[in-house]
């Protein structure tokens, strides 16, 4: 589905300054070489299994299933990975690749802080320098993760430009990469940006759907009817969808952050409210005004608070292979509380968007249907913010 230039239909591409072109080409060549290198794959698998704790469980959510009274619900427990989210899958792959390329320094953007923490972790493990760019607004929303990154030895640079959120952190990381290329790898955290990142990150995250498929066949002897995951840039969702794309009987459902609603300006639901554009290295859907100025977006979730979406999602949307549904802050917070209360699992507020969709769809589905929800991360980092949302002020 993707061709040599990293296109997914009309989407993707490599819209970067000339200064970065050779770096992009070198990364593409290195990845093309190492992805088929048995030694590289063996080292990566060892890190994923021994260090990150894979495979992650596919847990049958019995109480939730009984309570909702419809489809049978399984949770893919990416929250149980080391560092607390799916981000580690991609980071270990990219850090190992960067090391093989002779790079000694990793830079990264982060929204909720999960990708920043994962990158800082990999850098500590592999003896690399690490600098993480984070919107100043997000450093306040996710203070605990800022501390974790520093504890792991990373420098955290608060980004004050624009809306001081994830989009500005990406812009600043790209600026930094263009000023220091020789020793530095930009460890991009989602299936977005210029080629080859959407492909590299997709491949490293596709371990999620590979495991779901095997685990589901073992537990149920068949494929699920729906795979549900949250979509910001879209890395945990593409990872959850990938090995099911050629199984048309499996519905693929991406849950976007609608913020205060898709009929308001305070939303980050890119597929539902955006249009095609070129930004951050890729052609895809973006929230923008009539003159192509990128819109300030909003979501309670710092990890989904991004005005674009990965190009492969744009293509899956256009072809109708995947569906993209908007979930509001209110719905996500209710799902955050519901999963905690019902299953004793506190999901990341990002993942709670996927849980929220299942809470509406599962009761309407037959009991012989099977839904898989990817719990992309754990929610400890969100507790203070959700408490504030509910009017309770707690100290982290």
């Amino acid at each position, binding site marked *: 589905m993707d061709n040599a*230039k990293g296109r997914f239909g009309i989407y993707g*591409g*490599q*819209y*970067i*300054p*000339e*200064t*970065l*072109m*050779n*770096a992009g080409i070198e990364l593409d060549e290195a990845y093309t070489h190492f992805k088929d290198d048995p030694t590289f794959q063996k080292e990566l698998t060892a890190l994923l299994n021994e260090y990150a704790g894979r495979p992650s469980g596919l847990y049958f959510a019995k109480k939730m299933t009984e309570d909702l009274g419809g489809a049978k619900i399984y949770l893919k427990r990416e929250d149980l990975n080391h560092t607390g989210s799916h981000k580690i899958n991609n980071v270990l792959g990219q850090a190992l690749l960067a090391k093989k390329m002779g790079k000694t320094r990793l830079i990264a953007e982060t929204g909720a802080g999960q990708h920043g923490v994962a990158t800082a972790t990999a850098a500590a493990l592999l003896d690399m320098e690490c600098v993480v760019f984070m919107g100043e607004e997000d450093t306040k929303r996710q203070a605990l993760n800022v501390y974790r990154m520093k504890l792991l030895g990373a420098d955290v640079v608060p980004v004050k*430009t*624009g809306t001081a959120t994830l*989009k*500005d952190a990406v*812009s600043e990381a*790209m*600026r930094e990469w*263009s*000023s*220091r*290329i020789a020793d530095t790898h930009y460890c991009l955290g989602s299936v977005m940006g210029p080629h080859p990142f959407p492909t590299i990150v997709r491949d490293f995250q596709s371990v999620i759907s590979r495991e779901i498929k095997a685990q589901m066949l073992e537990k149920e002897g068949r494929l699920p009817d729906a795979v549900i995951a949250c979509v910001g840039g879209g890395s945990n969702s593409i990872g959850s969808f990938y090995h099911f794309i050629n199984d048309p009987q499996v519905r693929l459902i991406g849950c976007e952050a609608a913020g205060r609603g898709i009929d308001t300006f305070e939303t980050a639901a890119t597929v539902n409210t955006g*249009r*095609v*554009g*070129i*930004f*951050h*290295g890729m*052609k895809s859907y*973006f929230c*923008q005004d*009539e*003159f*192509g*100025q*990128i819109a300030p977006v909003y979501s309670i979730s710092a990890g989904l608070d991004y005005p674009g979406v990965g190009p492969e999602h744009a293509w899956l949307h256009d072809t109708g292979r995947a569906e993209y549904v908007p979930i509001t802050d209110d719905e996500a917070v209710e799902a955050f509380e519901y999963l905690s209360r019902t299953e004793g699992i506190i999901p990341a507020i990002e993942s709670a968007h996927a849980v929220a969709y299942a809470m509406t769809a599962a009761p309407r589905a037959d009991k012989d249907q099977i839904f898989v929800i990817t719990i992309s991360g754990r929610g400890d980092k969100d507790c203070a913010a959700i408490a504030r949302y509910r009017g309770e002020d707690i100290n982290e």
Partner: protein
Amino acid sequence: MSKIRSAFENQKAFIPFITCGDPDLETTAKVVRAAAENGADLIELGIPFSDPTAEGPVIQEANIRALAGGVTTDRIFDLVRELRRDVTIPMVFMTYANVVFSYGAERFIGTCEEIGIDGLILPDLPFEEKGEFQDVCDAHDVDLISMIAPTSRNRIAMIAKEATGFIYIVSSLGVTGTRNEIKTDIASMVKIIRENTDTPCAVGFGISTPEQAAKMASYSDGAIVGSAIIKRIAAYGKDAAEPVGAYVREMKNALRGL
């Protein structure tokens, strides 16, 4: 023949960059006229973008000021129509791919031809991705300006062979903004360019002093200055035309006789 070439016929070219609408379009018009009257050979007009990923802090802030003042692509087209009543030197737009793509490449570039814009610089559009814009530019006699960077190495010949208008040589790694020293071996880059094309080339990124401009232009066909001008506009606001004019005169004088 490209009208841009005429900018390189009056000795080494001095090319100022001005963000449209910073702090307002009336000031931009005065600054452009002051630059033209004081020896600018070609003017780069920046169409502000919300997220200018190739810019350093100085031009980022100019973009924010301009957008906050309500400037739009359509209003900038009107500014150019008004300027073209008396400004005859070549002018090009510098903006980001999404500003053109979102407006519609045909509609945007067709308007450029109609109002007298001679070229287009899109820093996030590398050689490999230029196709969909290049065809439209060719149809409307607008030069899509090629950029060459210190990291281009094996790519210089390929880019130079297809370049029209002029070639923008990026002097240094990183984003726009003044630098104390430019260490890149510009002469070696220009040598490869000359072997592959007779399209003129000018150096930008990091140039602010007459000495730097003279040095960069001695290796090439001209010097491009952005942040140093934007700093003057930020400092003088609506009264920026006179100090910018004086600065352009000083810079152009430094290039004479090279």
